[in-house]
């Protein structure tokens, strides 16, 4: 039976997501998760963020970062469950749950970005 292995492709998604997550996410967590809530910096004005999100380039970058970061998460998380908790017998269920989650998350990201007025 010749079946094209999907693992290299999944690994590529993991790797690309790892790079983008490393480049983009720390600064965003710092800004919107810590610095703005703790009032170290004043929050960006609403009109400014909306204008930024109306830029197609911003939308494209946000979408790609979100989708690949989710596929990065899946790859690591399922192996954490697999190796970390030694639950190899539940592999099918774990993959279904993890990849299902990433696909739903990606669709949600596309929907949220599509809804920007």
């Amino acid at each position, binding site marked *: 039976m010749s079946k094209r292995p999907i693992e290299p492709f999944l690994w590529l998604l993991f790797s690309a997501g790892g790079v983008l997550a490393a480049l983009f996410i720390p600064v965003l967590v710092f800004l919107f998760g810590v610095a703005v*809530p703790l009032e170290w910096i004043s929050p960006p004005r*609403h009109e400014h*963020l909306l204008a930024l*999100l109306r830029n197609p380039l911003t939308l494209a970058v946000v979408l790609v970062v979100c989708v690949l970061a989710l596929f990065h*998460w899946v790859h*690591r998380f399922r192996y954490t469950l697999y190796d*970390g908790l030694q639950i190899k017998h539940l592999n099918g269920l774990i993959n279904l749950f993890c990849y299902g989650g990433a696909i739903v998350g990606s669709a949600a990201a596309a929907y949220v970005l599509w809804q*920007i007025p």
Partner: protein
Amino acid sequence: MSTPTGYTEYHPRWHRTRLGTLWWLRRRSYLVFILRELSSVFVAWYVVYLLMLIHAVGQGNEEYQRFLHRAANPWMVLVNVVALIFVMFHAITWFNLAPKAMVVRLRGKRVPPAWIAATNYLAWTVVSAFVAWRVLGG
């Protein structure tokens, strides 16, 4: 299926030492490995948080202010401080691994691994500065 031998009727039992669920607590390097893998959970968390923020911005100023109010909840801040530690850990371990994963040759000579790591850190700095500049009203 052919049976090449006739001298063993039963397959011998595999010898595999069973690892307990908490094997990763036994050594520091195992713990670091598991923590690095778990950093991905915080990456996923932040994608969700970012999408909630973007959704709120799309809904209008009132919803955006409501999001900011919820984000200032001490528990939310705590989660995001932990997330920041983990995503920094992810970024640092990722960039430190990069020279091992990619071998770049320039005019037949291998580019020193330290240069590749330095390039990655430079890219990280540039992207972070650019994102902060755009977000904060450049």
